[in-house]
């Protein structure tokens, strides 16, 4: 974790320093209280250790002053922390009105991002640096939660209701996105990246409809799509079995389906598997592959097929 501290990860949003300051304030106050308690405990433990089995100490008179002080001092401390935390919370939740808007759809187990011009990406979101960005999120199945540690933002993503987070990235770099609401088998694989671009680069990226892959050889483009479209959340390329069957050795192999029929995995079969995953369900696997890949264009499909063909 570059430039993070022992406790907190790197700071890369405008709000991160403020939240970190509060974190460290609470941490230090806690540390002082904790050390005080433990030091007193250890000191008494040593000083008043039992030397003789017949010891019968005289009761200590209770001091009102001390008792009041250990009520009042913590109360003041928590009130400070409360007000401070409250202000930060409001800032975290109220997006500036001019924020750049991106639509986010979460589903088991991938993130899909849609930009105002209709470009969509899966598994990575591109944003401009130095400009507030607001993500309007909803889920297609269960609860998920969008979390970027470097930005210190997090919000649950609900089915049947829009929620949003906003942030303003301070530096062009790539940051990790986690899903932090438990959502089933591949909860821990429901990752994405925030790719922060300088403003001009971002505009260029956006205008090219999400990067220029036209020149790229098909298998290479397929490898990118494999990551980007989150196929990797369910399909491995090393032979290990995940939610879905591995791609290794898939091409050309004979497949058995839940209904007992079989087929050879050729181009057409793979095409169908991507576009209509429910058409034939591979034996031993649940039919949970999302049906949403219908929006892939021909070139993308060919790229994926070429990529799968390579995995022998």
């Amino acid at each position: 974790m570059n430039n993070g501290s022992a406790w907190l990860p790197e700071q890369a949003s405008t709000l991160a320093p403020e939240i970190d300051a509060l974190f460290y304030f609470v941490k230090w106050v806690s540390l002082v209280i904790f050390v005080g308690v433990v030091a007193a405990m250890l000191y008494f433990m040593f000083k008043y250790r039992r030397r003789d089995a017949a010891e019968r100490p005289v009761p200590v008179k209770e001091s009102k002053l001390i008792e009041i002080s250990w009520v009042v001092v913590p109360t003041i401390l928590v009130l400070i922390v409360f007000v401070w935390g409250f202000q930060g919370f409001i800032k975290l939740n109220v997006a500036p009105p001019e924020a750049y808007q991106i639509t986010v759809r979460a589903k088991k187990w991938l993130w899909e991002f849609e930009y105002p011009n209709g470009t969509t990406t899966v598994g990575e979101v591109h944003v401009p640096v130095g400009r507030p960005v607001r993500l309007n999120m909803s889920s297609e199945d269960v609860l998920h939660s969008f979390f970027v540690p470097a930005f210190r933002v997090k919000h649950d993503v609900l089915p049947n209701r829009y929620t949003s987070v906003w942030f303003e990235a301070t530096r062009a770099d790539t940051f990790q996105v986690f899903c932090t609401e438990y959502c089933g088998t591949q909860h821990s694989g429901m990752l994405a990246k925030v790719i922060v671009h300088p403003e001009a680069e971002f505009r260029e990226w956006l205008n090219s409809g999400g990067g220029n892959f036209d020149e790229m050889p098909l298998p290479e483009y397929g490898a990118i799509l494999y990551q980007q479209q989150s196929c990797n959340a369910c399909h491995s390329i090393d032979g290990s079995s995940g939610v879905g069957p591995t791609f290794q050795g898939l091409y050309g192999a004979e497949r058995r389906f839940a209904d007992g029929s079989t087929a050879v995995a050729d181009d057409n079969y793979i095409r169908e598997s991507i576009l209509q995953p429910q058409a034939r369900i591979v034996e031993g696997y649940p039919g949970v592959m999302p049906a949403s890949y219908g929006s892939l264009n021909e070139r993308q499909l060919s790229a994926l097929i070429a990529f799968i063909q390579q995995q022998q």
Partner: protein
Amino acid sequence: MSATAKATAAPAAHQGASYNYLNHDKSVWSWLSTVDHKRIGVMYAFTLAIVFLVAGVLAILVRTELYAPGETIMGPDAYNQTFTLHGIMMVFLFLVPSIPAILGNFVLPIQLGAKDVAFPRLNLASYYIYLIGGVLVVSAIIFGQVDTGWTFYTPYSSDGGSAVIFMTLAIFIAGFSSILTGINFIVTIHKMRAPGMTWNRLPLFVWGLYATSIVQVLATPVIGITMLLLLLERVLGIGIFDPALGGDPILFQHFFWFYSHPAVYIMILPAFGIISELIATFSRQRIYGYKAIALSSVAIAMLGFLVWGHHMFVSGQSAVSAVIFSLITYLIGIPSGIKVFNWVATMYKGSIWLQTPMLYALTFLFLFTIGGLTGIMVGVLAVDVHLHDTYYVVGHFHYVMMGGTVMALLGGLHYWWPKMTGKMYNETAGKIAVALIFIGFNLTFFSQLILGSQGMPRRYYDYIPAYTGLHQVSTIGSYILAAGLFLVLFYLLWSMFKGARAPANPWGAATLEWTHCTSPPDPHNFHHTPLVTRGAYDFHLADEVFGAQSGDGAGDGAHAPARLAGDGRVAEPQ
């Protein structure tokens, strides 16, 4: 008949209790059908030890899987079921019943000077109801998989595997057991106190159980109805919680936490009670701020109902409620602080005896303070946005639950072990185990606090390589912790067969179960209903503890125990 019973019992008491609740009837049936609160406590102790063992082994599996990124020993589905089962068993089947059911049942009536709890048959019923709940949990595992996490959030739980039905039923039923215990204790405390046992003289363990019982009675029905509604949501699709039918998943979270936050106080309040007993007894000092400690338990119990939404700061609930919940969350820190400070102050000018139970009490102080202060950290609105559902929260709650409640339970178990079994455990082994547990625990869970603030999300089967180092520390710590706990299990079992015979009052404690009872106690606890003339921790008035033949215990035969210590272990108060 009654005359013979009396005749054999009374002299036996003088010879170190050969006639007692354990051996007055040894048939298996006499155990299974017993309504004696002491025996029920012992049955709970065995059952819960098994549950803890199983749930703890599941935790070790979780830790082993997390030793390295990717698949280590199991696949993602197996992992998700493992941590779910670990959470459910630990919370609903182990920690919620633990202290009240084991030590509360055993000690509470004796500390009050009563012969039994108010409703002994209900007490036994609650044990069997608990067993039914446990059986249902096991059937949930056999008939399918439950991988919802212990929180059962909808809609994941309302359209997942069908075994969720068993699990919700299990929790519904285990809830009844908890309610019955709570009702029983409240009535016992109100109505069954011995003459002279005023509210101001109650041992603080009793106060802790009293506050706990209030929470049990008020909160548990809500988990019942929540589980029932979830069940109906699953079976019929009533559309209250399921967004696909127009329901509101956040409403489910309100329902769940309305119980489950107070439930964390069901877990910790009795632990507070035990710590008060231990610190006072082993400091031989009147507890500092008795009233403050007693009433702060009740305050925490009440305030605990007003903060449930602090688990939902990023769930989409309104900001108005987030603010209210956050504010009240901090307020709970204050009565908790009062307790911590009073405990430390009790040690001041005391006579501190570092036996194993006291070491657990000090460990508790250390770990609970960390756990509580990290609780304050996650209660800070803005900071919790970052920390929510990360390992920071996992660290927090293990510090309070394992470092708090389980440490107190272990302390209490060691403290009352001589009373329950009539045997002394091995002190040296005890101290070694405390050290292992203390070191192992901090390695396991402090590293999780750092992991979490670095951003590591919880309920993750796999993680990015940057987190590997700290996960390995945590896993190794958990092995040390497990070694410590297995050592405890081993020497406690050993002591039951080979341990030295316990005197009636090995610690020189001043509450009734020590001063007026043999070890182990008579089936009816006391030969005469005791007359209480001083507070529970008034060592300066407790002549019977120090051997003087005076006070209300005179002629009871069960008192003046210290001088009976034949094994030289407790050459205590002379």
